């Protein structure tokens, strides 16, 4: 290993970013166009504009502050998040347009497309939680490009070959992103020195900032789950079910967090992550669930899994495999996402067996296919990305500089209390 002094980003980051932005502008110049269709535009702006805004709040504020719980990494969490979002959205808009069926070379920019792109870009924000504090901005740029491409490809495949609809293929974002992030974290894992582990401690006021992010995610999650549902009554169901699942998982998370502590105290880290598990778990099936109690059961189980994961995973799973999952994306998004996928398959089976349809086997096959595809795609593309990120050319931060803002930020005067 080279010197412990953080390596200069000056030659690397501005060059890459400016070239990338110029390239994006050129691609937009050739391929992007306004929507000039004759649908009632007023309605489109009102409905899609509102949902777009909700999704943006979740992506920029929620995901940004959710990961800001580290003692010395708050600036990077929030600011890198914004950067990845801005880049990811531009790239995702283009990809979504190109990979559309039938393939076309003109991307028509609709508000619904921007909204979908924002949701696709959220996959990167989720994965970034796993490698939080261990990668620099240049590495994150590459990760954004790789992951958004992989995610769009996965959605295209599941839409075209596995007859999954838009909503379901988007809702496997959690599984995909969590396993992508975990694989990248596995590739980047190095033994942490003592001082780096100290920096990973969470203290009171950063925890409050993370709570801000959690609350924003929690409030807007019903919009996220129902964003791609087009039929009004399905959308209504989606909002209600998500709402109840979130409420139940919040209660479960808080009570279980107290239960698992020797003195019955509540851990803030558990709260940050586990209260959201219900929203993740109910995602894929939120429009199919006929009555609230099912959603509430899902929320309960998701809360259980999430808290259980938070307790067991870092000890058993992560230590054995050598994965360091900074923000716990595995138990926040990964496991509840898997639960949601299984619940969706179960509900589909139930629905079809009632209607005495002979296509039962095919349907189960397809649904399982989508779930395993998203997981496999996440693992595979994560592996490739992780291997590329391991190359020396990225000037990755030294292990001693992990979880430290000072490697990336200019401090004019060493601030008090830092």
């Amino acid at each position, binding site marked *: 290993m080279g010197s412990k002094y953080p390596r*200069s*980003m*000056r*030659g*690397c*980051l*501005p060059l890459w*970013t*400016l070239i*990338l*932005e110029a390239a*994006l*502008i*050129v691609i*937009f*110049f050739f391929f*992007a*166009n*306004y*929507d*000039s269709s004759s649908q009632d*535009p*007023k309605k489109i*702006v*009102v409905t899609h*504009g*509102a949902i*777009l*805004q909700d999704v*943006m*709040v979740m992506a*920029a*504020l929620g995901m940004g*502050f959710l990961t*800001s719980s580290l003692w010395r990494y*708050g*600036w990077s969490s*929030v*600011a890198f998040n*914004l950067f990845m979002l*801005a*880049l990811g*959205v*531009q790239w995702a808009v283009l990809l979504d347009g190109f990979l559309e069926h039938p393939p076309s070379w003109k991307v028509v*920019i609709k*508000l619904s497309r*921007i909204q979908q792109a924002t949701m696709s870009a959220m996959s990167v924000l989720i994965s970034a939680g796993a490698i939080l504090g261990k990668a620099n*901005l240049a590495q994150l740029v590459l990760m954004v490009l790789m992951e958004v491409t992989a995610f769009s490809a996965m959605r295209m495949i599941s839409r075209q070959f596995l007859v999954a609809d838009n909503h379901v293929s988007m809702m496997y974002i959690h599984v995909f992103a969590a396993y992508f992030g975990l694989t990248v974290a596995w590739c980047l894992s190095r033994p942490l020195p003592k001082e780096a582990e100290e920096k990973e401690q969470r203290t009171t*006021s950063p925890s409050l*900032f993370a709570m*801000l992010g959690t609350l924003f995610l929690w409030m807007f999650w019903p919009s996220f789950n129902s964003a791609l549902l087009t039929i009004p009554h399905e959308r209504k169901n989606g909002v209600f079910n998500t709402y109840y699942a979130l409420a139940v998982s919040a209660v479960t998370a808080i009570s279980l967090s107290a239960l698992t502590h020797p003195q019955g105290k509540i851990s803030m880290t558990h709260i940050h992550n586990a209260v959201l598990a219900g929203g993740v778990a109910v995602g894929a099936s939120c429009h199919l669930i006929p009555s609230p109690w099912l959603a509430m059961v899902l929320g309960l189980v998701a809360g259980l899994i999430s808290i259980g994961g938070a307790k067991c995973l870092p000890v058993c799973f992560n230590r054995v495999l050598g994965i360091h999952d900074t923000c716990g994306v595995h138990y926040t998004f990964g496991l509840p996402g898997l639960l949601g996928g299984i619940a969706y398959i179960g509900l589909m089976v139930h629905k079809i067996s009632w209607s005495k349809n002979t296509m039962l086997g095919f349907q189960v096959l397809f649904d399982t296919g989508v779930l395993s595809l998203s997981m496999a795609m996440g693992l595979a593309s994560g592996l490739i990305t992780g291997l590329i990120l391991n190359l020396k050319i990225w000037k990755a931060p030294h292990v001693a500089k992990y979880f430290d803002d000072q490697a*990336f*930020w*200019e401090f*004019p*005067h060493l*601030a*008090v*209390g*830092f």
Partner: protein
Amino acid sequence: MSFATNMRFKFPLMAIGLEVAMIVLFGLFAIFNWCATAHWCTTKLFKTASNIVNHCYRYSLPLFQDVHVMIFVGFGFLMTFLKKYGFSSVGINLLIAALGLQWGTLMQGILHSHGHKIHIGIKNMINADFSTATVLISFGAVLGKISPLQMLIMTIIEIAVFAGNEHLVAEIFKATDIGASMTIHAFGAYFGLAVAGVLYRPGLRRGHDNEESVYHSDLFAMIGTLFLWIFWPSFNSAIAEAGDKEYRAVVNTYFSLAACVLTAYAFSSLVEHRGKLDMVHIQNATLAGGVAVGTCADMAIHPYVSMIIGSIAGMVSVLGFKFLTPVFATKLRIHDTCGVHNLHGLPGVVGGLAGIVAVVLGASDTFLGKHRTMRIFNFQSLCYFLLPRSTPAMQAAALGSSIGTALVGGLITGLILKLPIWGQPSDQNCYDDSVFWEVLCTVLNK
């Protein structure tokens, strides 16, 4: 120089007096009208009154709320970066925004209604929020060096001048400025700079101990940045015509902001040593794209053009922070606390220039933009004469008048505020909450 900073009688008297005056003026001039500007309601769908009210209300209210969030949360938290000035940043922000939106409703209403009663609808409320935005921008320039009482006076004068300038730009020049790059951002920034120039404190030439940030105050400021960033598309499209124009305003602003983030990070890394990032740049320059695209947001420019505008704005803003602000503070004796010149002033001018170029290139004639297929020469030339359109000269005049009135108004306001009776803090008490707020000692010593 020391001033009496005791606010016990001056401030309550002034604030209550102003509020009573507002109530009286509202009593005299304002009446309700839920559907004031949505003309199609009154013409096309004149079925049942309740239906119409319901529709307009539901249509415009979300936009109003977005703008409201930006004004109160976004601008408020954006200014909380100083280590001992968080209370004042958010608190005084709330105070002047609350006063400003009442006064703004009145001023704009009187200018637009030509002596009749003011019909207050959601659009008026959005416009009133816009007028407070100018004051909040100017507040950024004088942040920490001014008392709440002075801010009240500045609010009253600035909104009056703003309403006059906006009337001039919109009604007489007929210039388009949908996201108000010129009339709000450039105006507010140069007004604030002029005030800050007149109120320059030679004693603080070498800086002040409290004029710096701590780790968590910068994170608080980031909350403001993110709120502004998220809701900026609504800000630029709030008063756009529903339909195509509104859609374009949202899309253009969105992509301009996204492109701006990338260039801001790149240039921040480029100008700092060892390629690090500077939090001040990230907090402010990432928003410059929204400011700069304001004037031409609703025009039929292509998405890539808005991305170019955003990139230029991000670049200009970071370079302004790095090189222009020190020059302003030392050579021109203008001390700009928040760097509003770089976030609102320069990108606002960029937006004005972009608007001129866009009008020259014919992006603003919406009729032709919509019906491209009918672009035959005769028809086009016919439209050219028949449709009311903004001309490049008028756009330039709008930019000039915005900056001109802002500077003149700011100088006059500054001279008024320089009178030693408004309880301004002394030099060593600047940037300190404890002058005007009850603060716990433990917090201060930290």
